[in-house]
C-alpha cells in the first residue's frame, strides 16, 4: 500500500471518530433541551451505508452515466417549478421512476444526487441533507417496491406510492421543527399541530406526484426500459462479477437470461 492509498483510506476512516464525537455532542445537547443538532447528525450518518454500498460495487461508465442523466433531469425539472408553486415538483416522480426501472440502489443515488445538484443552483442550506435523505429514500423504496414486479409498475400502484411519498417527503422535511416541538413541550398534540400546519404543502406535493405518474409514468418507464435493455446496464438480474465488459456477447446473453 503506497502513501497515496493510505491517505485515501484514512480520509474514509476519519469519519468514524468524527461521527461518534458528533453523536455524543448532539446527545449532550438533547439532554439540555436542544434538539437541533441530533437530527442533522443522524440524517448525515444515515447516508453512509448507501454511499459505501454504491462505492463497493464495480460500476461501468454506462451505469454511472445513466444515473447522472436521471439526476440531472430531476434537478432541471425542479428549477422551473421552484418559482411557480412551492412543492409542485416532478423531482419525486423522476426519482421514483428511476428507482423502478434501474433498481433501489440507483434510485437512491438519483434522489440524493438530484437534491445535491439542484441545490447547487437553487441554494444550499440546512435542508440539503434532509432533501437528499428524503428523495434518496423515495428512490430506494420505489426500487424495492416495483423493480422486480411488473404489475406494480402499472399506473395505480405507482400512483399510490407517489402519493405516500408526497406526504412522507414533507414529513421528513418537518422533522427538525417537529423534534424541537417535542423536546420543548413533550406533547404529541403540539407535534401533530405542527404537522397539520404544513399539510397544504404535502397535499400539493402528493397531487404533483399523482399527476406526473398518471400522465408521464408508463411512457417514461417504457422509454427507460428500452435504454436499459439496449445498453445492457443496471440489469434486473444481478451479475456480481461482470466487471469485464463485453460489448456484444455480454449484451446478448444478458438479454436472453432476462427473457427467461
Amino acid at each position, binding site marked *: 500500500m503506497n502513501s497515496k492509498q493510505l491517505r485515501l483510506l484514512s480520509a474514509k476512516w476519519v469519519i468514524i471518530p468524527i461521527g461518534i464525537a458528533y453523536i455524543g455532542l448532539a446527545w449532550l445537547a438533547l439532554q439540555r433541551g436542544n434538539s437541533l443538532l441530533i437530527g442533522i447528525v443522524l440524517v448525515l450518518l444515515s447516508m453512509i451505508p448507501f454511499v459505501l454500498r454504491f462505492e463497493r460495487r464495480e460500476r461501468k461508465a454506462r451505469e454511472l452515466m445513466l444515473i447522472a442523466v436521471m439526476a440531472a433531469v430531476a434537478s432541471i425539472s425542479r428549477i422551473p417549478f421552484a418559482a411557480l408553486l412551492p412543492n409542485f415538483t416532478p423531482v419525486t416522480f423522476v426519482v421514483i421512476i428511476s428507482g423502478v426501472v434501474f433498481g433501489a440502489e440507483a434510485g437512491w443515488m438519483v434522489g440524493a444526487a438530484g437534491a445535491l445538484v439542484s441545490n447547487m443552483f437553487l441554494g444550499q442550506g*440546512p435542508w440539503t441533507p434532509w432533501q437528499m435523505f428524503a428523495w434518496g429514500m423515495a428512490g430506494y423504496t420505489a426500487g424495492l417496491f416495483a423493480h422486480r414486479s411488473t404489475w406494480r409498475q402499472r399506473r395505480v400502484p405507482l400512483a399510490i406510492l407517489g402519493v405516500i411519498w408526497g406526504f412522507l417527503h414533507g414529513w421528513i422535511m418537518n422533522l427538525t421543527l417537529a423534534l424541537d416541538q417535542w423536546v420543548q413541550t413533550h406533547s404529541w398534540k403540539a407535534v401533530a399541530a405542527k404537522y397539520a400546519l404544513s399539510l397544504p404543502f404535502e397535499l400539493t406535493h402528493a397531487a404533483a406526484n399523482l399527476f406526473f405518474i398518471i400522465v408521464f409514468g408508463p411512457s417514461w418507464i417504457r422509454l427507460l426500459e428500452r435504454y436499459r435493455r439496449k445498453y445492457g446496464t443496471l440489469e434486473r438480474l444481478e451479475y456480481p462479477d461482470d466487471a469485464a465488459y463485453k460489448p456484444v456477447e455480454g449484451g446478448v446473453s444478458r438479454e436472453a437470461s432476462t427473457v427467461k
Partner: protein
Amino acid sequence: MTDSFGFRSLHPFTILLYYAGGITFGMLLFHPLILLAGWAAAVVVNLHLDGGREWRRWTVPMAVGCLLILLMNPILSHRGRTVLYYFGDMPITLESVVYGMTLALSMLNLLTLFITYRLVMSEQKFLFLFSRLSPKAALVAMMALGMVPRLRRRLQELMLIQRSRGITVTEGSLAQRARNGTRIVGTLLSWTLEDALQTADSMQARGYGTGRRSGYAGFRFRSRDMWTVSALTACAVLLLGVWASGYGFMKVYPNLGSFRLITGDQVALAGYITYLLLPLGWEWRDRKSWRTLKYKM
C-alpha cells in the same frame, strides 16, 4: 471575485472546517444575544465577500421563515410559567415566545452563514472534498452538474422546434398541453440518454474503471491554511469547553432564565464572533497587499 483572493483562497478542507464549526456552534449556543451577535458577524462576512448582494437577495425568504417560526412557537407550545395573554383559552407564555425568538435567531444565523457558504465553497471545492470520500458518487454528481445547463439549452431548442410543428405547452386544452409536454420532455430524455451513453462508451474506451481513478487537485494546503486551521481549532476547543461546563446557552423552560451574559457566556460570545470573523483576516491582508502593489505601480 476569484478563488485566489482572501477567504476564498483557503483550502477546501479549511473552509469545510470553518462551516462545520460555525453551524455546530450556531446550533449549540442557544442564547438569543450570542446568536444575534453571530448573525451580525455572518452579515459582516457577507458584506466582505460580495458587498452583501447575495444576502439581500435572500432577505425576504429568510425573514418570512423566521417570522413563521416566531409566530408559530407560542401558538403550538404552551409550556412555561409566565402567562402573558389568553388567546381564547389558549395561554401564550413568555417562555414560549422567547424560545421561538431564539429558535428563529438560530435559523437566521445558520441561513446567513449558508449564504456565505455558497459564495466561498464553490462546486469545484465541494466536489474536490467529496471525491476523496466517495469517488464514484462524486463523479456522478459532477456529471449531473455539468449536464444541467446543457439540458436547459436543449429543452429551449426543442420547444422552439416543436412549436413550429404546432406542439407547444402554452396553447390548447390542459390535456393537450400535458400530452405535448410529455412528448417534449420524452424527446429531451431520449436525446440526452442517447448521447450520454456515447459519452459513457468513450469513457470506457479511454480506460475508465481499469485502474484507480486519479484526479487533479488544484488546491494546495498552504501556510495560511495551517494558521487558520490552528486558530479555528483553538476557538472551537475553547467554545466546546465553555459550552460543556454549562455556559453559552439560556435556560428557557420551565421558567425563563436571565438574558444577562455572565462571564462564561461572554467568553462564548467572544469565541463565536472570533471564530466567524477569523477568515476575514486573509481578506483584509490580501486587500492591503493589492493596494500596496497598485501603489508601487
